[in-house]
Structures are given as C-alpha cells and as structure tokens.
C-alpha cells in the first residue's frame, strides 16, 4: 500500500508512520496544506489519511481538490472534531471513512486496509493468508477449502486480526472495534474473551494453525511465528 499521511502533529504522524511501514507499505508525509496539495496533485496513493485542521488550509478543501481532479485515491479523514457537520460534509465530498481522534492505530490500520481492499479488488474481495481464505464481501472463510461458520462478530474480529498482522492489538481497541465506543463496553472484556476463544476454536477445528497469541495480558497478536 502507498499511503499519504496528512497530519500536522508530528508525534502522531511518527506513530502512524511506524505502525504502517513494513510489509511492503510505503508511507509519505505532508505536514501542511500546500505540501499535501502538491503531493496529491503529483502522485497517486492507495489511501490518504487526512487531518482536517491543517496549517495553511482546511483538510476538506484538499478533498474537494482531489475529487475535482478525478483521482481515485481512497481518503480516510482523521479528525479531532467530533462534529457531525464535518463528518457528513466529509463523507459527502467523497471521503471513504471518518475516524475521530483519539483512535487506536490498529483501528486505523483496519479501516485503511478495508478502504484499499475495496478500491483495489472491485467485487472480488478475497484475502489469502496461508491456508485461510477470506471472502470479505461474501463474509466467507475457508480453511484448506473447508468452510468455517463464524458469527458476524467473530468474522469482524478475524478480519481485524488480518489487517493488523504481526501487531499487538489491545483488548480496548478490539472491544471498541466490535461494539463501538458508545456502548461503554470497553472496560469489560468478558465478551471479547468469548469471541476470541470461539474464533480460535472454530479455526482450529477446521485445520488452521493457531495464529492468535495472547500478549502480556493486555492484548493479542496475530502472527505466523
């Protein structure tokens, strides 16, 4: 994936950069409006992470520019503004998703991966991971061509793990991903344990290796090693 991070907060940009780099991902950075505008005009990206409040201009204007020049780059707005107007106008202008700060890097990665997947594989939305095949649009998983029946939550969880391969993902982040932060469930991980346990069990029964490791008691890591 080729990603442009438009973010004026250097510390935040660094974290995103570190998290995304690797696995063939290339990240570029623009810290102000003009740099971002230039890069957007010159190059194409799989996904642009767009902060709304930028030095030198409004992030939404960048979005309009992009859409005017008919570019197909995916756009994920990351903003501290929880304002509905911004969310709606952002999505109206053609942004693919909207993430409110503060967010978990794993959530960001999952959403970016989803956007890029949608952009790149029109219709045929299949992820392969060793013996496991995931058809995201049909919500099917097969292990060595054996179908595995998962609940919606388990499926979401698995796709989330796949998007964050080799990363430690916290339980908070996973709970927020599955239930949203409104339900105030993020301090209660009983559900999460159950879902992870069921997921591992179902995949194991279908013949998949156990890729999901518990880490330091605060999260999980989906890894081959």
């Amino acid at each position, binding site marked *: 994936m080729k990603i442009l991070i438009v973010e004026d*907060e250097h*510390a*935040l940009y660094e*974290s*995103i950069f*570190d*998290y995304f780099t690797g696995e063939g991902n290339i990240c570029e950075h623009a810290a102000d409006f003009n740099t971002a505008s230039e890069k957007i005009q010159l190059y194409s990206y799989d996904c642009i992470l767009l902060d709304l*409040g930028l030095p030198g201009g409004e992030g939404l204007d960048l979005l309009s520019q992009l859409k005017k020049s008919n570019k197909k780059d995916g756009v994920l707005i990351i*903003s*501290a*503004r*929880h*304002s*509905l*107007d911004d969310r*709606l106008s952002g999505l109206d202008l053609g942004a693919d998703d909207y993430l*409110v*700060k*503060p*967010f*978990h*890097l*794993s959530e960001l990665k999952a959403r970016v991966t989803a956007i890029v997947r949608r952009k790149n594989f029109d219709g045929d939305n299949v992820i392969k991971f060793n013996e496991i095949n995931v058809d995201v649009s049909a919500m099917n998983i097969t292990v060595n061509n054996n179908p595995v029946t998962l609940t919606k939550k388990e499926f979401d969880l698995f796709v989330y793990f796949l998007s964050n391969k080799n*990363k*430690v993902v*916290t*339980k*908070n*982040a996973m709970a*927020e991903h599955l239930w949203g*932060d*409104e*339900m*105030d*469930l*993020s*301090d209660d991980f*009983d*559900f999460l344990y159950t879902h992870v346990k069921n997921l591992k069990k179902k995949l194991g029964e279908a013949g998949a290796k156990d890729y999901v490791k518990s*880490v*330091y*008691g*605060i*999260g999980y890591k989906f890894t081959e090693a």
Partner: protein
Amino acid sequence: MKLSTRYNRVNILTSSIILIITGIIYYFFIHLILTNKLDKDLAVEEDEIRQYTRTYQKLPLPASYLDQQVSYRELPGNTNDIREFSYTTYLNQEENDREPGRSLVTTVHLKGKNIQVTITKSRVESEDLVRVILLITLGVTLILLVSLFLINRFVLNRLWMPFYSTLKRMKSFEVTKIGEVSQDLTEIDEFIELNQSVNAMADRVKQDYRELKSFTDNASHEMMTPLAVINSKLDSLLQTESFTAQQGALLEDIYQATGRLARLHQSLLLLAKIENNLITDAQELDFKDLVESKVRQFQELFERDGLTVEVRLSNKTVIMSRYLADIVLNNLFSNAVRHNLRDGRIVIALSKTALVISNTGKNVNDTGRLFDRFSKSPESEGMGLGLAITKQVCNLYGYHINYEQMNGMHQFSIFFDPES
C-alpha cells in the same frame, strides 16, 4: 389579547363613557340655559303686567300671545305675596294640545286686592331644541365610535403589519441559517428601529454562535490531539519489546485511563453542544425501529447477565437527531443493564406518548440529583454523565424525562409530549 384588540377595547370604552357623560352634561346645561331664558321671558312679562297695572290701575287683558298665556285669580285678603317658577303643562288652543310649559305664579296688588297672576309659556320649542341637540350628539357619538372602530380595525392592523412580519421572521430565525431576520421596508420610525435592533441582535447571536462553535471545535481539537498522541504512542510502545505481565498491567491501566479521558471529554463536549443547540440534524425517525435495533445490539449484554427482557413497542415516529436518539437509547439501556441484578428483568415499552424503560435493581435513595452531572451511585463504573446528557437531549426536544421506583423496579420514562 392582541394589542389592537386591547387598544380598541380601551379606546372605545373610554370614548363611549366620555361621550355619554358629555351628552348628559350637554343636555342638562342646554336645558338649564333654555329654562333660564324662559324664566327671563316670564319675568319680563311679569314686569310688563306690573307696569301696566301700576299705570292703568287695571289688569291687562288676559290675552294669549304667541305661546304664552296669562290668567288671573283673586286671592283672599291677607295671603302673602308669592313668586315662583314651576314646570306645568301648557294648553295649546290652536292645536288643542297639551304641551310642556313653564309658568310663573306671582302676585300683583290692585286697589288693595291681591291678585295672583299665572303666566305660562310653552316649552315645546326649547324641548324640541334640546331633543335635536341630543340626537345630533348621539349621532355624532355613534359615528365617532364606528369610525374609531374601523380605524383601529383596518388602519391599525395595517400599521402593525411590519411588526407582525418581523415577529414571524424572528420566530423562524435559526441561528445556523444565514440571512437577515427582517428586511421589510416601512416608513414608521419605531419599526425601522425595531428591524435594525432585531438584525443587530441576530448578527450578534450569530457571531456568538460562530465563536462558540469554533471554540468548541478548537477545544475539542486541542485536547483530543494530545490524547491521540498518547494513545498512538502507547500502541507503538506495545509493538517494541516483550513486556512482563506486570508492565502489561500498567500499560492496560494507562489505556483505560486514556480511553476514559477521551470519552469523558467527548461527553462534556457533547453536553455543551446540546446545550448550545449545535446539533442540528433533526429528522423524522422511526423510533420503534431504533429501539428494536438497540435491543438487538444489547442482546449479548442481556444474555451475559441472564436478564429477561420484555419488549412492548407500538409505532412511533419522532423528530430528532439520529445521533442523539442513539445516545439516549444507549444511555438508558446501559443504565438498565449496569444497575440490574443477576437474572433480573428489563421492561421496554414504547407507546405513542412515552418510552418507558424499567429494570430490577438494588434499592437506591433517590436524592433528586440523578440527572445532575457527575452524580452517580458509589458502585457505578460510569462517569455520571449519561443521564445528564439524556436529560439535556430531552430538554432540547421538549420531552420530559422522569425517574421513579415502583414495585422494586427502577423506571425511566420519556414523555414525548408532556403538555398533553
């Protein structure tokens, strides 16, 4: 009461009273003046009779003049002289008609005899005059009242037109919309001033609104950014080295606190936004549908605590922001779950008039501060903002939220139309 009605009422009432009183006074004065004039005429006649008697030593002929009759009567010797005016009747011989009259009874001395003289004059003319004057007065009064009424009715209403149109615009004024409150052209100074003041006020309000909005946005932005940095750095930190379980526990605590801080902050911003009416995406919502999907969303939680959920919903649409409706339902549902007993019960009832959510739970002392910010029971894990936000949302849409304990159930009711 409308201003014109009120004004009309006072105006017409006062005018009527004043005109009636004037009429009465007028009547009496004219009556008095005319009677005085008659009396003077009678006195002149009396004088003439006296002079005639003195000069000729005999009574003049009791001839009748125009509208005047004189009669004599001899009185017994030693009666006192009298002289008095009185209202009598006057016999009109020509028309053989009794008319109101005024007579003067007086005494003249002739050759040692006392003779009573009665001079009577017809009052018919003066009475006619008075009547005509009275009629004219009444007529003028009536015409005046009618024209006053018509003026008030039509001219006043037309005069006040700019006021009503300004009022209408003020009513439909929305702080989020652009455009002036009133641009109606009027030549009345007061209304021009009113329009100017209203426009100035609207501008000020809009200015304040913009400032508030940008402040809220900025505050949110400024505080969320460091939080986002902390969160992302924690995520990065987690990827670096192996941690011991103890370090893991510490990290988890930091995560929790950061998450809590973010949620707390978002809740406070949300409260401020609702209070300042900054959430404007009100739309027609199928509330039944909303509640049903919320029940599905909470299904896992219900099952975890072994709660029995009774749902009785009838169709209901509301006009409100979907976002806020979702928040309200989330808060009420989480509340019903969080403060429930193991294997307890939740009843969710939606009718045309109210949404009622009741749940079993421990007895609590209702301190009346349930809907206050940061008020929560000691064992609650929440932030104490959920109900405050819920209440605020209800206020925004004119709903009424009520809490009561009934038969061991805690019951929250939202009345959509508290007036009825």
